[in-house]
């Protein structure tokens, strides 16, 4: 298994691509939810597959984990995991604009995850001249064993997990959510190539 390391410039470039993606995604989200989303600097750390379980173990106090696969051109594909903290999970329906009783908690969290994942990745992809398709989002029970079982059963071997910690503070409904993008090796190399192409321009 190859070790994946980004040098300082690559990390900085990736961070900026993600900043722009988050900025536009939250703009769409804010318009859709009719509210203002306060953005903090997202923390981005690449973690290799061995480390991921350690970092996930700390995070898996989560109330819910939703997984959604994504795939674009040039072998860029992977899976997004969205993790929510239990204290943030109430009043989601309010936030999403559904009437009480219209939607179960499961459905709300899947809906929100799908919006966060697809709006973010759509912008990210367009910056690197790519386009994404998505599989149906699935709710994994927020249970350590279930999530690691799921990761083991994946259709691809991922080498890198990009952990993007996004804190959305929506007026009146502050909540945090962690997005983890699991990316297989060929996709990493491709993203790296794209980053290097961007960096070469300077």
């Amino acid at each position, binding site marked *: 298994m190859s070790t994946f390391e980004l040098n300082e410039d690559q990390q900085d470039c990736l961070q900026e691509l993600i900043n722009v993606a988050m900025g536009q995604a939250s703009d*769409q*989200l804010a*318009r*859709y939810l009719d509210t203002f989303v306060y953005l903090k600097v997202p923390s981005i750390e690449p973690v290799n597959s061995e480390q991921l379980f350690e970092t996930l173990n700390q995070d898996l106090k989560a109330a819910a984990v939703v997984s959604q696969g994504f795939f674009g051109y040039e072998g860029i594909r992977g899976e997004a995991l969205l993790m929510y903290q239990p204290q943030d999970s109430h009043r989601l329906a309010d936030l*999403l*604009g*559904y*009437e009480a009783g*219209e*939607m*179960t908690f*499961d*459905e709300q969290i*899947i*809906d929100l995850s*799908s*919006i966060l994942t*697809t*709006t973010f990745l*759509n912008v990210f992809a367009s910056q690197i001249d790519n386009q994404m398709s*998505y599989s*149906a*989002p*699935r*709710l994994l029970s927020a249970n350590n064993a279930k999530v690691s079982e799921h990761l083991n059963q994946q259709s691809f071997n991922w080498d890198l997990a990009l952990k993007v910690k996004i804190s959305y503070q929506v007026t009146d409904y502050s909540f945090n959510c962690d997005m983890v993008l699991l990316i297989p090796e060929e996709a990493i190399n491709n993203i790296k190539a794209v980053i290097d192409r961007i960096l070469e321009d300077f």
Partner: protein
Amino acid sequence: MLDELCINISNRLNTGILIVDRHYNIIMWNRFLEVHANKSDNKVIGKSIFTVFPELPKKWFERKLSSVVQLKTQSFCGWEQRHHLFELSHSRPITTDSHFMAQNCTFLPVEVEGEVERICILIEDVTDVCHYQSQLNKALQELALSNRIDGLTQAFNRKHWEECLAKEFSRARRYKHDLALLMLDLDHFKLLNDTFGHQGGDLVLIETAKKIDKLLRMGDLFGRYGGEEFAVILPNTDLEGAEEVAERIRQSIAKNTIDYNQKIISVTASIGVAIIDSNDTRYEDLISNADLALYQAKAAGRNRVCLAKEVATI
């Protein structure tokens, strides 16, 4: 030419395709939907989707589509959250128990010059998946249960019972709660087996387990420890309370008669009782203490209850 080919293919797909405009009017649907909805084209095309499918949750549906239009991104609705949106017949009416087709629906934005003018809804038939998943869940539940249960007596099996004891033991130590344990052995069971055969012996085990189970409270944990040995965990119970339960069980077993092949079998039991004490560091200590008391009951002539405390003072 290509258009014709596309229409041809879309009409042979085993997936429903439905296209609506921003006012929820149906622009196009494919043969799959025509067949499964059993409605004809002229009652559908140009009509509102809510007229054609009055079963749709209108507000929910409008909000869902507005997210597709506004965010220009696809949205999903899976069978695990909503079994179906559209009331469609499915192709497994006999082998499955659901009335309507289970569905995975995908809502795709169709952009014209940067604006979402139409929404394409893909409807996949997942009735089979849904059916097998529910069968699998049922089987898994049964399996989980059978992993914990002794097949003959329906009491917990030894492995599961010991796991329960380990949990109760550490809980009682942590919160300084009472915890009592009964170890019960049927008297002269080998003789009984020799007299009535193994089938007779099995019947005694079954009937005795039933009797014991009836006398227990919610929260008590009853297991088959070995051949003719049973064990009961009594959480939040002191020595006096445990002795009472043990005595009731002993009397009930002694009074009970079992009909087997026109013969009457009666049986008695010896019971050892122990409670957690501060010297016990492992749950196995509690078992040893109750075992000692059981040995004492046997030695004192059987069909009686002995307390571990008395054993210790002897």
